[in-house]
């Protein structure tokens, strides 16, 4: 739709200082800090520049993300970051669209959009920072809270079955599904790079601990807390949907890495193809001349 802007001069990678905006409002020890730091690192590693990056988020602690990044950013309404980002992605192939959010935004109020963005295979990167609790509103049950988790809305322990984000992504037809955690920065960065390079909907399920309301939630996956961090076996076939589904279904802490990655045409590509087909039919015509043909038929 819009043409990319020419980039004549050589530009140096941005410094962390140049990328930082507001000081994050997160509590000390919050896992989201690590995601933000690695987002900066990703932008630096790839020598992306401010104007080429668009950071989109909905509502929640983690969704405050865009305020902390010095780049074009959007803080949208609760649960709808993905359709907003879809509008950007389909309109502007020249931009890198990164969408951030939490478990409530992604799987509860915005659940429908998660499924449909995945099945449409919109070209964008989506990082969900899952802390399994509503933090911004101070400890209510989240869609990923395990059964028995005591919150202000489930004082006797959560009773509803939690959502399994990776399973849901795979069943919705997501073309890139990875699982990582904030306590392993190297792995987190590798997943972000792979998701960004994926031509399609790149979904990362990132465990991100809420030290304030759900301390120790993910200790079993953190070697420094006596847990185990095990990567996806080297022989895992990422194109095997059944194998991916099995990995996603493992009991906590399970495996970390890319569960599924397949190359399927994105909606962006399909729409472009459709447009190209039509362009040959109207070649050489100005916009008003194309419209004139419709009006001539109404005479």
């Amino acid at each position, binding site marked *: 739709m819009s043409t990319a802007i020419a980039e004549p001069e050589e530009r140096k990678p941005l410094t962390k200082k140049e990328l930082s905006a507001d000081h994050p409002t997160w509590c000390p020890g919050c896992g989201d800090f690590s995601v933000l730091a690695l987002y900066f690192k990703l932008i630096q590693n790839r020598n992306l520049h401010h104007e080429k990056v668009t950071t989109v988020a909905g509502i929640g602690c983690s969704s405050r993300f865009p305020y902390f990044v010095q780049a074009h950013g959007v803080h949208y*309404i609760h649960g709808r970051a993905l*359709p907003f980002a879809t509008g950007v992605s389909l309109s502007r192939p020249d931009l890198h669209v990164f969408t951030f959010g939490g478990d409530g935004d992604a799987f509860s109020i915005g659940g*429908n959009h998660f499924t449909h963005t995945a099945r449409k295979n919109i070209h964008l990167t989506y990082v969900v920072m899952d802390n399994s609790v509503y933090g911004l509103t101070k400890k209510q049950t989240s869609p990923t809270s395990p059964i028995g988790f005591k919150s202000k809305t489930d004082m006797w322990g959560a009773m509803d079955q939690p959502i399994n984000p990776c399973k849901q992504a795979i069943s919705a037809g997501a073309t890139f599904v990875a699982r990582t955690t904030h306590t392993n920065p190297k792995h987190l960065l590798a997943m972000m790079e792979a998701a960004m390079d994926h031509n399609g909907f790149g979904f990362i399920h990132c465990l991100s601990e809420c030290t304030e309301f759900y301390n120790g939630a993910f200790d079993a996956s953190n070697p420094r807390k006596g847990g185990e961090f095990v990567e996806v076996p080297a022989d895992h076939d990422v194109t095997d949907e059944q194998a991916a589904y099995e990995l996603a279904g493992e009991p906590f802490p399970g495996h970390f890495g890319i569960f599924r990655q397949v190359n399927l045409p994105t909606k962006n590509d399909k729409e472009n193809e459709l447009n190209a087909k039509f*362009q040959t039919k109207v070649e050489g015509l100005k*916009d008003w001349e194309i419209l004139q043909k419709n*009006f001539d038929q109404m*005479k």
Partner: protein
Amino acid sequence: MSDSIAAPEAADSSKKVSRVSEAVIRIAGNSQDGIQSIGGFLARLAGRSEREVMTFMTIPATISGGPSIFQVRIGSGEVLSSGDEADVLLAFYQHSYENHVDFLKEGGIVLYDSDHVEPNPEWQKKYRHVGCAVTALTVEAIGGTARDKGKNIFSLGLIARMFDLDAPKLETLIIERFHGKAASISTTALTAFHAGYAYPIATIAELYEFTEAQARDKEQVVSNGNEALAYGILAAGVRFGAGYPITPWSDIMELLRRELPKYGGIFVQAEDELAAVSMAIGSSYSGRVAVTGSSGPGLSLKTEAIGWAVMAEIPLVMIDVQRAGPSTGMPTSVEQSDLNIACFGAHGDSPRVVIAPANVEDCFYSAIEAVNIAKKYSVPVIILTDQAISTRIEAYPMPDLEKVVQDISPTFETQKDFKPYDLDAADGITNHQPPGTRIESGKYPVITGLEHDEMGHPTSSPVLHLKMQAKRRRKLQKLGRELKRPEVYGPDEGNVLLVGWGSTQGSMRESVERARKAGDSISCLTMRHIMPMPEGLEEIFDGFHHVYVVETNDEGLNGYGQLCGLLRAKFCDPKIEGINKTDGLTWRVREILKRVQEKLDAAKD
């Protein structure tokens, strides 16, 4: 089956031709009979013959079947509404006959399918009855396999003969209509048409001939309101849209989906209304005004996002094709009851722009105006049309497309420094620099729904909230000052001023014409801009003793409709009163005049 005539007088076998300047034809049948296509052919023929035309239709909200009507009013002069009473009723079934015979004017003609309709002797005294075995004759003409199919085209032939319509032009329209389909389909259609046209109706019914149409300097086009609006969106330069299916908005999204790829654009069928509005806002944020739309229930769902666009000052065009509410209401009936939600729907104070096109042609130009206002003022603009305007067909002059089609592609010129919410900006108008724009100061904007400072960073400062709130208000007050004062139809001073909006314009104008001929002092005014309102209304109202606001919505708990409520709030004038109804139908002229008389009588007591 013999052809029956039962008119007040015995039938005259000699050919009798009356010259008429206009005619109202109501076709009543079931929705699967293709009566809309007879109406469509007649409307397009009228347009090609430089005549004016207006149609009115009702369709059942069921998937298949159910009674349906299509009414066409064709005139050599100005046609303002679809007509209060019909000259001819074409009835396919007993129910079509019984439910619509009342709509005929005295002495009007009932043309009925004698295979399905048993005439009522009482009614035969009042109206001329002309029976014709439409079903049997159609089957005879085109073969029995298609059962009832084709009787619409057969009837078109009958009407064409009766009104001495241009048969070769109709044949061309039929061929065009079936262009691209199997040749046998258009051959069959033409056979049915010829059979109807050849039927010896001249011997049993009155024949008509239209007076010469006024010559027009511009070619005419014929379309319904949804088409005009969708083409207006394309002309305005919009290249992205998203929507979710709902009647009667779906036609617009289907048309945009079909046409946008020719312009390199995209229309997305979203998973729900919330996603549709969000995708459109996301695309607008990317630099070019985008469109979404819906009908009542969808607008309810979209309001949170519209509030965000007001707060974040992102342009958006939102089309609401109103239907009868509340809730699922009557999906295929007309109502103008979404005005309040269009003006105020969203939590918090969220000023936005609301425009209501007054006729089919106006739908085209309103779309362009809406896009330009959205762009200039960085604000959501809601276009309020309704079921009546969206489905009715009118003829109007061909737009000068070379002139009106515009390019609104974004530019990405590097900025030295940029504040998205600059409090010193003239009239508080924000101009966004879309993503992709390099900003040399290295300070990039965040676009947000939180109250924010000039860079878009969150604040809970009371001073900033006051200032930003005022900024969002001031820019629309500025727009209000720029809007054209509405024109009064009829004299500027008098006893009664009717005020309306949207699809009521035609009926109001015809009411004024009729009442003035009878010697009454009455004028009318259509408000195209509901929010903000143009200046000068108070001076106009000063010229009249009574201001009656005619709306297709309920009188509400306070005794007046939704626009009337806005006007009373703005002008605190008790002479502004409401004339309301919610029967799911458009206003008939005599309904309006009767209600005006009742109001005037009540005022005397």
